[in-house]
């Protein structure tokens, strides 16, 4: 592989690595989502640096030009990440569904309790007492 594309690949992989680590450091990216990104950056970096491995990989997969093997691996990781995010999204939408349902049930219960309390004859005094207890 020509040295220029090797330099580009190494620079790109290192930049990715640094950005991901920085995001994790600033708590902008959770570790569980960072792991796949780190793995892909490391693998791409490794293949860019270690030419023999890339050559062998290209040969094993029947790819004539070694740099194409690098792109193939990178693309595979991108697909993997996208799938990972689809799964994460499914989980999140499931969670938000459960929260919405719980929220609605609890809200209904609170409304019913408030109405029941408003009907109690002693509710005014109770309210004033609790207001006094909370202070100003």
């Amino acid at each position: 592989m020509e040295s220029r594309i090797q330099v580009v690949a190494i620079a790109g992989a290192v930049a990715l690595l640094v950005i991901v680590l920085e995001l994790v450091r600033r708590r902008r990216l959770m570790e569980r989502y960072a792991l796949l990104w780190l793995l892909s950056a490391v693998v791409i970096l490794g293949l860019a640096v270690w030419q023999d491995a890339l050559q062998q990989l290209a040969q094993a997969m029947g790819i004539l030009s070694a740099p194409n093997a690098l792109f193939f691996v990178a693309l595979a990781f991108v697909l993997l990440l996208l799938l990972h995010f689809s799964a994460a999204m499914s989980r999140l939408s499931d969670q938000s569904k459960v929260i919405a349902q719980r929220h609605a049930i609890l809200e209904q219960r609170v409304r019913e309790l408030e109405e029941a309390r408003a009907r109690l004859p002693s509710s005014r005094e109770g309210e004033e007492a609790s207001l006094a207890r909370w202070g100003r």
Partner: protein
Amino acid sequence: MLHYPHNRCLAVVPAYNEQDSILSVIQSVREHASDFDILVVDDGSTDETLHFAEAAGARVLRLPYNLGIGGAVQAGFSFALEHGYDRMVQVDGDGQHDPSEIHRLMKAMEADRSIDVVCGSRFLTPDHQYPAPISRRTGIHIFAFILSRIMGQRVSDPTSGFRLYNDRAIALFARDYPHDYPEVEAVLMVHHHRLKMTEIPVRMFLRSGGVSSIGSGKSFYYMVKVLLALFVGLARVRPVPEPGEANPVAAEQGI
């Protein structure tokens, strides 16, 4: 009017922008099924559905955003489970289900105590005249054919939401109810969990207001999606977690 003194009964009315019909549905349930408590699940409506339902004196679950019919009905199951109801009937807020048929669903369930779900079917009467577009009826009949083979019993109307559930079915569906177009998949879940389901003929009205969740153009998309859900559902490792297993909705452990 029949009474079932040993049961606590809940009518769940899922409604999404049904301000034109919600009032008459509530009044009709109250008139024809007076021993059913009414719970309207307002699925994030943007019109006056919520206020009309509250003005009619129904209890209302107010979902903070639109979850779709599956999420709305599941909220009803959760409510029923939490409040100890042992019968729950779903009556759609668009007015296509006839509340005067509820007692017939009840009778079918009381007649055979082993039955967990009684489903109102549009296609069991000999002169069934359900005026749906041909595209939708085709889909329904395809689902009916597949489910009948799987279940080993005739399922004529798997897309009907007009169903009565007992406590076992309530507990099952409160834990897990399918997402977008739940009725067909729910039949499969009934089968997986060895619950018993039966159908009785009912009349259904055309919608009296609002817009159906399934437009005619979406029929095909709907069919493909439900077919996918059906076949994936058949191969699912664990249809629903048993007590003590990992919760399907939980924080992610690994990557």
